[in-house]
């Protein structure tokens, strides 16, 4: 019996947003009389942080503190239409709609402030701390709150904005497949270090090391949770789970978490991540979306690392101990490949 060390890698790209487009998102932004903003959406927060990323995009665009913005989402009576949270579309599509809406609302806010300060709105800037002042003259200023109160009670202005983002639907050529799938791609390269036991067929993932290019990490903490969680799912897809372990035989499906195998806390490997940011020309502040793609490089990297460790190729997922042992038997034992670094 021996445990063989292996290292494998894979590199991928991933399309951001619904393939072929045609998937609109809308946003509505308005201020209460104290200059506190609400963003109304119909996007879905699945735990990925849809509300928070919309909130940060709105606060940045409005030029107000983040505490002054809350996102109210997914009530069909008050939230405008949105296709939904899937296809890595949330940040890109909803984010852009929020920018359009927040820009309009900011325009009215600055007009109201300009009227109070008796200056041209084009000369006004926000400090992101709740104040509006004349560019280069910080003393000539008004708070967002005072400007909003003036708009509501004195000037009769609605500080609000509407936004929509739509990439027009692309056709597909039946003969050649010519199409415009998406406008932005995220990228990744991931290295897996693992060991394979040639007696039990057990694979232990020891370390993940990765580089993800995501346009811009709008909230680095949420990016980190996505990348770590996604890589865990990738590891689970590669080595553990399926409702049909002998697909296409439909039997033996798990009925609960005892029978449906997934890696537990003891199986989680440390993950060392580098984030690269090449802004998407049409992304909100350059953002793309790490949502789906972060799982993808793990599957092939694991398979390639297993080959590096024992010299067998398992081309059918998941790579279970049974498959490894059968392949080792067919090969006549482990044949470790060249060690890398």
């Amino acid at each position, binding site marked *: 019996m021996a445990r063989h060390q292996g290292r494998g890698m894979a590199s991928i790209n991933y399309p951001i947003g619904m393939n072929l487009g*045609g998937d609109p998102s809308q946003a509505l932004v308005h201020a209460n009389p104290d200059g506190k903003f609400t963003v109304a959406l119909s996007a879905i927060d699945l735990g990925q942080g849809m509300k928070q990323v919309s909130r940060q995009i709105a606060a940045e665009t409005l030029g107000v503190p983040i505490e002054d913005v809350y996102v109210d989402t997914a009530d069909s009576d008050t939230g405008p239409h949105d296709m939904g949270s899937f296809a890595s579309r949330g940040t890109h599509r909803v984010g852009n709609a929020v920018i359009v809406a927040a820009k309009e609302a900011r325009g009215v806010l600055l007009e109201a402030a300009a009227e109070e300060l008796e200056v041209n709105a084009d000369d006004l800037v926000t400090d992101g701390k709740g104040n509006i002042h004349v560019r280069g003259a910080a003393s000539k200023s008004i708070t967002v709150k005072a400007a909003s109160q003036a708009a509501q009670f004195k000037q009769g202005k609605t500080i609000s904005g509407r936004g929509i983002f739509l990439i027009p639907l692309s056709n597909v050529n039946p003969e050649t497949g*010519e199409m415009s799938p998406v406008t932005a*791609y995220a*990228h990744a390269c991931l290295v897996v270090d693992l060991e394979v036991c040639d007696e039990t067929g057990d694979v232990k993932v020891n370390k993940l090391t990765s580089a993800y290019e995501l346009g811009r990490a709008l909230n680095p903490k949420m990016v980190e949770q996505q990348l770590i969680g996604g890589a865990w799912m990738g590891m689970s897809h590669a080595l553990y789970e*399926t409702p049909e372990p002998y*697909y296409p035989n439909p039997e033996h499906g798990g009925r609960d978490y005892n029978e449906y195998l997934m890696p537990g806390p003891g199986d989680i490997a440390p993950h060392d991540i580098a984030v690269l940011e090449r802004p998407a020309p049409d992304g909100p502040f*350059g953002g793309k979306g790490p949502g789906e793609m972060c799982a993808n490089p793990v*599957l092939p990297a694991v398979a390639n690392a297993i080959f590096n460790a024992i010299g067998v190729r398992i*081309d059918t997922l998941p790579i279970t101990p049974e498959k490894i042992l059968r392949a080792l038997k067919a090969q006549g034992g482990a044949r470790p490949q060249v060690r890398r670094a």
Partner: protein
Amino acid sequence: MLEFRKDLFADERDDNLNVIGKGEQRQDMLGHVTGRTRFFDDHGFEGLLHLKVVRSPHHHARIRSIDVSAAERAPGVKRVIRAQDVPVNKNTLLSLIGFGKDDEPTLAVDKVRYKGEPIVAVIADSDAEAMAAVKLVRVGYDPLPAVFDVQEALKPGAVVVNETYPGNYFEYHDKYDHQKLRFGDVEAAFRTADHVLEERYQMSPIEHASTETNGTIAAPETNDRYVVHSCAQGLFFSLGTTAKILALESNRLHFIGGTVGGGFGGKVDSLTEPLAVLGAILTGRPVRYVLGREEEMQFGSPRGAERHVIKDGVMRDGRIVARQITSYFDAGAYTRLSSYGVVKCVAHMPGPYTIPNVRGDAYCVFTNRVPATAMRGFGVTGLDFSIEVQMDKLAHLVGIDPMEFRILNAYRDGDMKAHRRVAHNTALIECVQVAAQKVNWPLSETARRASSLSGGGGPRAAIPPTVTDESGRIGRPETRQAPPQLTPGAAPLPAYQTPPAVPIYQPPPAHQPVAPLPNYPSQPAAATPPPAPVPPVPAPPAAPQHGAARFSSVFTRRR
């Protein structure tokens, strides 16, 4: 551990923003960590009823008879819903965007096509009473032979799974039994390649395994409307689907959701919304329909299985000159979203690499299993697994380091992709370089100096003369396996048109692309990737295709 490589692409970014780029705590964190956040199932109603469904024990069977009389008399039962009670009992999810034919009943009629297909719904005062009554529904079946393998299902004479698609494949463009991708001439390139490698990859189905299972609570509201607490990943998508199935105007439904306990694609199908609302309509009471864990794992739609057969032609120096991919998506018994996943898969071929000759054929196949649906990266995840294992094998075959092999073949700004759009904003090379650096994986000087910003375009931007073929016409499976028929006079396709731009993000004025990066100086001439080999000349061109003919739409079935 997470680090930022701010040195890369620094001149394309403004890093002096106020809130963007900050790890601010989410607005709903306090509610989540104190257990006060309300999910769909946290909405209590007085007089709440519970709905459960009778599911088929057979993979494929004709329904001979249904007897609900005992169930109707069972304790606590308020209503039994049968197929004829569903106003529009045939739907396909993507009909909302005009894609595909209605092919799936909410409750089975005449036939069941997968094990677990709902046939009858029972509504009772409690979960336990509903489950007890479900067992009292007597359904007579005549079992039918079933088909589980995608390639078996495509064979002439195979068992017909879903009569809407009698060939067991989704029909693309009203013309083909699959979606094609044609770029250059792979057959000619295989003949000139130093090595040809053909391999088969299989990804099994995957369960989403969200913490929260699928479910809905629907209740009559005042003014003849219904409030619906939903776990849907697309609120209006689910509202629209429910309105269609129940033949209601959309504004009679008031959907509330947005805070969901995990989805991963498993909450796109509106598995529970239509029946819960129908139950509320028929009983005048609030109705809760939630899948148990076993139901969710066995009968909630999974990520579908994908099979990819990849054939590559590679030169001794590592250049991939041709890639052919044949893909089979196992949709299960009904379309749901698999037809979309197939087109997404085709758009992703041949992966993030510049290959001068590419051919793709992707099938959406019906089998007698639980209908598949979206899941994190579907259409791409299985293909990426296949491509990247294939890349590792190719690197091994030609004796080149796998990272070097990726960089050599990586797509770069300005390259033409197989779906005939120019690549821009690429960063695959930089990701490989950074990952290599982090693990001290030795790279050659050439690989370290490579850049996504340079070396692309030029001859790599060309659309090669392309041969097309008529293989796989609907209803003619015998043409599927035939060697590609060179269409006489197939002409090179016209140059692509730039899609409408939607610019919003404005890089700072100082933005100057193609400046040398700190760690990766722009590459010397020696590091320039080899130009794409000149593709073989096809048959003499006939009349050029017109722009209008280029885009026959997959979306022509609007109904």
